[in-house]
Every structure is written in structure tokens, then in C-alpha cells.
């Protein structure tokens, strides 16, 4: 099972929204994943232990794990493309 780290400013609000959208999409595609949430500040410390990092905002730090920007999952503009990109890392 692939693990996704979803990060936002406080690890509460927007990351909850994005994480549940990713989960829902993966479920529909019958892919089993696990998501965890954290603050953006914690990504450099934690990110390497995951298969994918999704952030809801600008992320300037460095991690080895691929990072996808998830802003479109909040605005709804370009949502499908982003979900497909996220999924491509989880197959």
C-alpha cells in the first residue's frame, strides 16, 4: 500500500480537504492508499518516508519524494489533471 503525505499550513484545514479527495478518488479507481497529514514545516523531516507528498501551497523545502501541488483540488480548477498526476505515482 502506497503512503501519501498531505501537507498544508497548519496540517488541519486544507490538508483534510485534499487528503479526503485523494482518498475518494483512489477508492473509485480501486487503489489502496493511506494518507497522513502534517504541517508544511514538518515536510523536510518527514517527507522521505512516504511515496508521495502533496502540498496545498507553495513548498520551498527539499525532499527526495516526488511532490505534487494540490491547490487545484481546493479551487476545483484543473482538478482532474492533478488527480491523474497524483494517481500516476500511486500505481
Amino acid at each position, binding site marked *: 500500500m502506497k503512503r501519501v503525505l498531505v*501537507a*498544508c*499550513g*497548519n*496540517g*488541519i*484545514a*486544507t*490538508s*483534510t*480537504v485534499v487528503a*479526503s479527495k485523494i482518498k475518494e478518488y483512489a477508492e473509485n479507481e480501486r487503489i489502496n492508499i493511506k494518507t497522513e*497529514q502534517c*504541517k*508544511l*514545516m*514538518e515536510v523536510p523531516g518527514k517527507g522521505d518516508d512516504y511515496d508521495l507528498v502533496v*502540498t*496545498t*501551497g*507553495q*513548498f*520551498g*523545502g527539499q525532499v527526495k519524494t516526488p511532490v505534487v501541488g494540490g*491547490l487545484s483540488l*481546493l*479551487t*476545483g*480548477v484543473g482538478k482532474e489533471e492533478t488527480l491523474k498526476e497524483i494517481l500516476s505515482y500511486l500505481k
Partner: protein
Amino acid sequence: MWDAIMSGFDWIIGAGPTVMLPIVITVIGLFFGLKLGKAFKSGLTLGIGFAGIRLLLDYMASNLGPASQAMVDNIGINLDVLDVGWGSIAAVTWSSPIIVFIVISIFAVNILMLLTRTTNTLDVDIWNYHHMAIVGIMVHYVTKNIWLGIGASVVMAITTFKIADWSQPMIEKFFGIPGVSLPTVSATSTLVLAWPLNWLLDRIPGIKKINITLKDVQKYLGFFGDQMVLGLILGSAIGLLGGYDVTTSLQLGVSMAAVLVIIPKMTSLFVEGLMPISEAAQNWSQKKFKDRKLFIGLDAAVVVGNQDVITTALILIPLTIGLAFILPGNRMLPFADLAIIPFRIALIVALTRGNFFKNIILGLATSAAILYAGTITAPILTDLAGSVGIEVAVAGGALLISSFSATSLTHSFLVFFAFVGPLLVTLPTMIVIIGIFWYYFEVMKPKSKQVREQRELEMGEQST
């Protein structure tokens, strides 16, 4: 009939927030077109979040309360207003008996302003309505007048959407996020003070030229950004200052680390519960306004990951604690909300375009304003929390609660004050102040931009 409805209301209120929240949120969910089952599950999720937060606050008050009392007795510094964090205040907000009317009013204001083209911000981030709602709820609590309460939240909504519009170009430019504005009061509120102050600073000769670059701040101060470590250090320090022995101080430190780590997990239940409602509202309104280019209102969480914001926040966290100790008249002990200082200063950083010197000055000024407003409104907030079953009184003295959100925010404090003061004086004053901001951003600023572009155009023509 009327009597039956009223006694129904009384029963719901009397049953307390854990029963009321599921019912109230189900009603809000149905209003936004959710199916009954989904709406009820949303409500139940919020009820569970509330139960969790109440449990934690009780734990926090019974541990930190006596310790801060001991600190007051021991070193004579009067910091008896506990900062219990924005999540706890949001929980109090969502469990108010009038929250349904307020949420629907805020949503209606947004739609009306979009229809009349007085705003371009589509704000369906229902969760963050709590910042606008709490002002109305506190006004209602003080005045017992539901219309004044709704009025205060409506004014909060109008001003918040306008500030979101006005700050949008600056946010797009600095953070590089197009098509998005941030009607998050916890982030935009500091602008109310920072806009004029920044204007002043720019007129003091020499200030603009001061350019500090800060390297390695994140390396050395990074632990301030880690809730666990922050809780441990603060808890232990308060214990020691209160004259506790080392063992007891460490126990307090670990308990407080636990509070800071667990509160966000409870708060995220609120977000999870409200998400289907936000989604329904988003789908409905994006369909309704599909021919128009709108700014999607998002939580300011999307910009606080910026490196300049993090660096400034890490410096301001210890400075804010220091400020609390030295500001005369301040009684608020910063604690749970130190973690969200990035939100308070994110837009200041965008305003100064990352000038660290100005960031720190403006950050200190706005933090001081938060501490004072938090101190002044703490008694009302404490009573309000008590009315929904959050009791924080400890043996040997009254303890008050406050936070870095609700009416501690400059914007919210001013609107609150305007609605509970002598209305004939304060309401017209408020309207004049809003008018000045409105005139500056809608008339003066576009004009001066036009003049500037015209001049540049002419200069261009001359040189060719």
C-alpha cells in the same frame, strides 16, 4: 404552534452543544442541499470533535491553570488569561444557538455581493466562516439582541470579502497563486493595522533601505515550529517559573505537549464534518457564476508554507512570548496559538515583499494589538465558553480564556466594539472608517496606478 417551536429551541439549547451541534449542522447541511444521511453524519462528526475539544480543554485548564496561577504568585507577573487556541474558540462558535442564522447570512451576503458585483471573491470555505461568526455570537451574547449579532457578522463578512479583493493582487504577485483570494480573517485581520503602518514606515527616511537577510534561522529556531517541542518547553518553563520542582515541571511540559499535539487532531474533525457542506456550496455557486471570472476564496493555509513567512514566524514566536511579559496591562499568556503565528504574519510578508526588518516591526505591532484585544475581551469569551459547558475556573482564583483568534484579531475587535459600544457614536464611526479604506482601494489606488502607467507611457514615447 409558536410555543411548541420555542420550547423545541429551549430543549435543543438546554441539551448542550454535543446534542445541538449534530442537529444544527444537519439543518445547515440540508439548507445547502445535502442528503439527510450525509448531513447528519457531518453533524455527528462535529459533535464528536466538540466532545474531544471539551475534554482537552478541561485537561489543559486543570494542569496549566494552577501552574499559571502559581507563576502569578511566584514572580508577580499577572498573566492569568490562558490562550487556549483558535480551535477551541471555533468549537465554541459552532456550538452557538444562533450559528445557523449567521452562517446562512454570511453565505447570503457573499452571493448578494457577487450579484451586485461589489466583490469578486467567492467564499464557500464554510469552515472559516467561524471567524466572522464569532463576532456576531459575542455581540449577541453581550447585547442579547439577535439582530445586532447578525448585523455584526454581516459587517464582518462584507469587510472580509473586500479585504480579500484588495489584497488579492498582492497575494497573487508575492505567493504566485493566480485566481485565488484569502477571505481568512485570521490572516487578513493584521492588514487592517499593517496597511497604514507600512504606509507610515515607507515615509520614514532610511527604513526602506534597511535590508536584513536572515540565514539559518530555520536551522536554529526550527524547534519553535514543532508543536511537541514548543509545548514541552513552554509547559516546563511555566512550571519552573511557578516554583514547581523539576519533576512536576516536566510532567506539566509533557501534558502541554500532548494538548498542543491533540487539539489539531480534534479540530480536523470539524473540518472533515463541514467539508461536504462546503463542497455542495462550491458546486452550486460555481455553476451559478460559471460565466464570470471569480477569485476562489481559500483558507490562508495555502500561503503559510512560504519560506519568508516561516522564517519571520520563527523569530516572532519567542518575541511574542517576551512581549506578553513586558507589555503593561497585558494579561494574556500566549500558548496554544503560538503555532499559528505564520497565519497572522503571512500577508504582512506579502505586503512588505519579504523585507525582514519591516516584517518584524509590523509583526510586533500587530501581535501587541492581539494581546491587548485578547486581554480586554477575555471575560466575555470566558463567560460565553462557560455557557456551552467549557468551565475553566480553577480552585483559588478565576481563570480567563482567550486566544489569538476571535475578537483578539484587530479587525474582529473593532467590529465587535462598534456593535457593543454606544451605537449612535460607534456605528457611524465604523462606517466612516470602512468608507476611507473603500475610497482608498477602489478610487485612489486605481487612479494613481493609471497616472503612473500614463506617465510611463509618455516617458516611453519621448525616449523613442
